[in-house]
């Protein structure tokens, strides 16, 4: 290799920075989706690389399901503050309270209900573009998605009719009411994300590292036991997500590999307590990252269906 050659992380970085700058230049009112998870942590660093010494020219947006790990919320708020970025939070709770959406009978996961909350935020702030941290290696439907993913007036993705995306020329043109989702990390793998976190010395929420936690066994996974219900007169937000008497409970040394919210994130038993350990663990892993996501196990096209309806 000569000195005018980029290694894989440098290549992925310059590609992502280019995409972020295209967003800043081509859209009127973009937002950057930031959950505090590992992918969005990389995105914030890429935004710094793209826009410093200026401020990041767009607000951060997070859609809370109401079932978040408290460690993640704390990290999210602190990180936004450190960066001097504006953080907008909208919640599924609010969408339910205002009657803009209803949970199906027995529906415990708030995953589907994030869709109306996200679309509501897009309408409220008239966002024309949301930058998301989705990666193509996560899931089969995502493997088909463009960097610039066009959504119609209902926020829908039409996978059979995507705009061709050629070279690094991204077509960002929209008609009123339409929207773009942009994914700078499209070409990153789980391993790339962790190697980048290591190279950039990025802080990640503590739940990625091994810790002791009360879990229960359901659907072949160890799920975290939700925090106790405060009996504040409201119905238990975790109803249905609490262990049943016949489900096995255990105190385990675990970490999370991918974070959705508390009821759709399976934990893995692990002693990895540094980024180096995590990288070694992934290198030896025999299941994919989303193998521990309950929300993708519904059926083979679960993600495709959610994306068509306007999911991230």
């Amino acid at each position, binding site marked *: 290799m000569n000195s005018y050659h980029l290694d894989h992380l440098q290549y992925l970085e310059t590609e992502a920075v280019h995409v972020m700058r295209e967003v800043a230049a081509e859209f009127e009112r973009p937002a950057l989706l930031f959950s505090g998870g590992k992918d969005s942590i990389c995105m914030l660093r890429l935004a710094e690389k793209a826009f410093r010494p200026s401020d990041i020219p767009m607000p951060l947006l997070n859609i809370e399901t109401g079932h978040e790990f408290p460690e993640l919320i704390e990290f999210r708020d602190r990180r936004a503050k450190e960066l001097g970025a504006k953080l907008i939070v909208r919640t599924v709770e609010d969408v339910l309270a205002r009657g803009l959406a209803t949970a199906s009978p027995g529906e415990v996961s708030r995953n589907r209900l994030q869709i109306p909350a996200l679309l509501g935020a897009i309408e409220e702030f008239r966002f024309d573009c949301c930058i998301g941290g989705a990666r193509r290696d996560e899931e089969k439907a995502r493997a088909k998605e463009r960097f610039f993913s066009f959504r119609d007036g209902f926020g829908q993705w039409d996978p059979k009719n995507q705009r*061709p995306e050629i070279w690094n020329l991204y077509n960002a043109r929209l008609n009123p009411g339409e929207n773009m989702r942009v994914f700078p990390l499209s070409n990153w793998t789980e391993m790339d994300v962790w190697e980048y976190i290591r190279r950039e010395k990025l802080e990640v929420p503590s739940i990625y590292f091994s810790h002791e936690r009360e879990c229960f066994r359901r659907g072949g996974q160890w799920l975290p036991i939700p925090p106790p219900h405060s009996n504040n007169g409201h119905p238990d937000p975790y109803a249905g997500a609490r262990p049943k008497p016949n489900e096995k409970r255990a105190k385990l040394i675990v970490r999370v590999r991918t974070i959705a919210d508390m009821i759709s994130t399976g934990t893995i038993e692990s002693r990895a307590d540094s980024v180096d350990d995590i990288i070694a663990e992934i290198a030896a892993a025999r299941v994919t990252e989303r193998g521990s996501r309950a929300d993708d196990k519904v059926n083979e096209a679960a993600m495709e269906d959610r994306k068509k309806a306007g999911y991230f």
Partner: protein
Amino acid sequence: MPVPAHHPVDILRFNTCGSVDDGKSTLIGRLLYDSKNLMEDQIEALERSADITGGGQINLANLTDGLRAEREQGITIDVAYRYFATPKRKFIVADTPGHVQYTRNMVTGASTANLSIVLVDARQGVIEQSRRHTCIASLLRIPHLVIAINKMDLVDWSEERFIEIRDQFEEFLPRLDMKDVKFAPISALNGDNVVEPSPKTPWYTGPTLLGHLESVHIGSDWNLNGFRLPVQWVNRPNNPTDARLHDFRGFSGQVAGGLVKVGQKVMVLPSGQISRVKEIWTYDGPQKEAFCPQSITLVLEDDIDVSRGDMIIGADNLPGASSDLHAKVCWMHPRPLQRGRKYFLKHTTQTVQAVVTAIEGRINFATFESEPDAPELALNDVGEIRLKTAKPLIYDGYATNRLTGSFILIEQGTNATVAAGMLFPPTEAVKPEYTDFSI
């Protein structure tokens, strides 16, 4: 736990193309499976779908055919991207559709590739789709090509058949200007010569497919001649707390060609103003030099007017500047291209209006000749056109620089991306108004 070594590796991007049922998706499945890049839950999911739809046999193609309609019809509709790694390299794979109606998606998958694999069914030999895909790979100037002659098990591993098909290709390859073409006899279904050398082809002395992917030289695939920085975004901090940043004015973009060094003389086009590079600003600290395709922010010595869509260039290898353009285009939309229609044209970081002034020819994939007098270009046609733009473009020929020699056309109203364009070399270089512009 042992910590993996911090050895940087590079990325090879490749795409697979070929006709429907030539086994593209099976080949990618095989590469992932044999190089141990498949995980248990993926194999389980494959086995689950095999029980339902495959009569018990694992279908490796289900790995990449991710959309419901694709699994139903058993074909690939859109580009699926896959990622895998070996100790030598990381790979980004674009599995591109074979069906004629999805040729535009093949262009999408191939435009960023270092290497293309064209699959051919050994029983059928060269068919129109093989010619079309090889031609598109050559049009897009993909630096490396592999012709994988698949399903060799179905022709009894016949060397004669292999040579026959190779000869069919070599008959037309000289007309396509491809520099690096390799041929390999494989069976994607059984894995022969994909990752492991096959005992059934003692007559084949070349590398396995993966062996070739791991070792092909891609170091010179980026253009390092003639500095080009299409300005993407002007970086001007608002109310900076750091007093040194009050006058900061940087020009951000991805280097689209060549190198730039601090102190170097540069020109801003189209204005023609000249300055020197004061600083190459990056988040990781100032750099002495930068090269293609790094993303950087340039600070110039002089306070001159620069905005998005301008191009900052070096003094060597001047680009062309013209509003009369000559290009090859791949047409990607069901509504045909017609003379006299107006489109938006996006080139580097600017979008201008353009009108098609002439359709000079349409490529016949049977002969590779450009046939004159085409009244229009239909979906999946490739042709030569002339365009007039509302303002001059600063550009290079596509053969010299893929990033400054390419454009897309966008239909007004629907905003659909309707064409991928590759510019012929400029007939005239930019004429700097200042005569002292030299190193």
